[in-house]
């Protein structure tokens, strides 16, 4: 947090200096940072949010024509969408579609909706917007699966589109909050901050963030994955011990 604030301050000071006295290379059009580069999943984890903030050289807003777009990407998470069908009066899982290239987490925020400030082809190549994600399906190609994927991912908070705004203070300082739900996957996350002027992306900065399990949750998950047999035996012994302990405690009282 402090490191980021110092950076933002430095950027502001740079902006405050007379523009004519500076070479273009030394004046970044965009400076951004995040409040933390590590989200830790502890035993008490219920979700987390990080602040993305920074400053721009020129004034932001519809008058000056500059906008900031913040987009966060999680690791790839191939996802299967199943549709329930009624068979003999029972609802069972029927046809399915697999989406192999979708991100496990995606959040988009901007000062103005991206479709207003960027042409469609740039918006698509930069993948700004849920409909611009690579939603290639294997299996059933019915559009209902794509719609269900978009709806369900948004409902549980793993995909967000304009869920929170990019806030602007003093015309040049911007900040946006990226919220991770408690179901967030571990891995490397990438946050892109884009500066848009005259329907073009004029500057971009990439920030990186790691989501990791720490403490007990981390050791349990890693033991369970790397040594499943040992983990299974430990689970059995712990459960037996807990049961035995209970009977002993009861007998004393």
């Amino acid at each position: 947090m402090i490191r980021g604030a110092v950076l933002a301050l430095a950027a502001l000071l740079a902006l405050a200096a007379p523009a004519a006295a500076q070479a273009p290379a030394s004046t970044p059009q965009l400076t951004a940072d995040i409040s933390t580069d590590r989200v830790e999943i502890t035993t008490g984890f219920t979700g987390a949010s990080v602040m993305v903030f920074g400053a721009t050289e020129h004034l932001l807003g519809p008058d000056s024509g500059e906008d900031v777009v913040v987009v966060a990407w999680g690791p790839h998470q191939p996802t299967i969408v199943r549709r329930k069908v009624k068979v003999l009066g029972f609802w069972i899982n029927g046809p399915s579609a697999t989406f192999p290239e979708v991100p496990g987490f995606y959040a988009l925020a901007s000062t103005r909706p991206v479709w207003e400030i960027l042409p469609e082809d740039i918006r698509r190549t930069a993948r700004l917007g849920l409909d611009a994600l690579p939603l290639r399906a294997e299996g059933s190609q019915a559009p209902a699966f794509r719609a269900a994927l978009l709806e369900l991912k948004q409902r549980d908070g793993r995909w967000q589109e304009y869920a929170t705004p990019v806030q602007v203070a003093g015309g040049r300082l911007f900040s946006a909050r990226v919220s991770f739900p408690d179901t967030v996957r571990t891995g490397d996350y990438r946050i892109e901050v884009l500066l848009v002027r005259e329907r073009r992306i004029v500057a971009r900065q990439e920030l990186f963030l790691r989501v990791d399990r720490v403490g007990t949750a981390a050791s349990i998950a890693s033991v369970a994955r790397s040594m499943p047999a040992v983990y299974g035996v430990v689970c059995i012994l712990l459960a037996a011990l807990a049961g035995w302990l209970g009977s002993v405690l009861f007998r004393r009282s």
Partner: protein
Amino acid sequence: MQVYLPIAEMSVDALLLLGIGFGVGWLSGLFGVGGGFLLTPLLILIGIPSPVAVASGANQTIGASVSGLIAQWRRDNVDLRMGVVLLAGGFAGSLLGVQLFAVLRRVGQVDLAVAVFYVVVLGIVGMLMVRESLRAIFRRRAGIPAGKANQHTWLHGLPFKMRFRKSRLYISVVPPLAVGFGIGILSAVMGVGGGFMLVPAMIYLLGMPTSVVIGTSLFQVVFVSANVTLLQAIQVGSVDIVLTLLLLAGGVAGAQFGAAMGARLRGEETRALLGLLVLAVALGLLYGLVRAPENLFALGPAP
């Protein structure tokens, strides 16, 4: 107080889990069963993924049954030889059951299979229990003595006979092996110890005396659920120890209250109540299967 479950990869209210553990423990103490048949559906109901609910339910069953087993062992109420024969069948059954579970998970039908198994098994067991106990209650009211349990049936004509001294039986090993096998499959798919099925099977199918039935069934349940836990941990990777221990913490306490209360109830009445409870769970799950789902679509991780 939220707690993060590392294997289920979600956070759940710890007090809710303690409460569920306590309630299920109370009922299991009252009725003398492990309570897995209530626990797994409840866990699925609060949003725990089916594979984690089943595997952790089996893990919890070990803890819930081990104290009972110790108590019965001290009173010398365990027919070890019968237990080992049942266990041999149970190991084979749970081995097959876990394979079946892994296949169902691959084709995306775990939820359906678990629900169908529950509805069918609980429905049948519940109906049999209610019928039997009502009959016993009417018989007691009318003053008719109970019929003889050990009747000679075709089961006694099977080969490979073996003497089970503590059960005072000389029967073929095929029926106990088959009973153990069937319950092994069910415990792997349903995440239950199978005590609620094993006890009636031992009394009515095998003709064992009631005194050794509970202890021997607990012996089988502890080891079969240990086997299921191990196999699920290795093959599916879905045992959540944090979930298990929270449930056990509530369950161990609840079981003591339940047992104290159960001592004041008559055997037939207890069995009738348990039968009704089992039936209610079966009907609830059946309703979940036939009711039109809120959302036709569901997401899952691609294999």
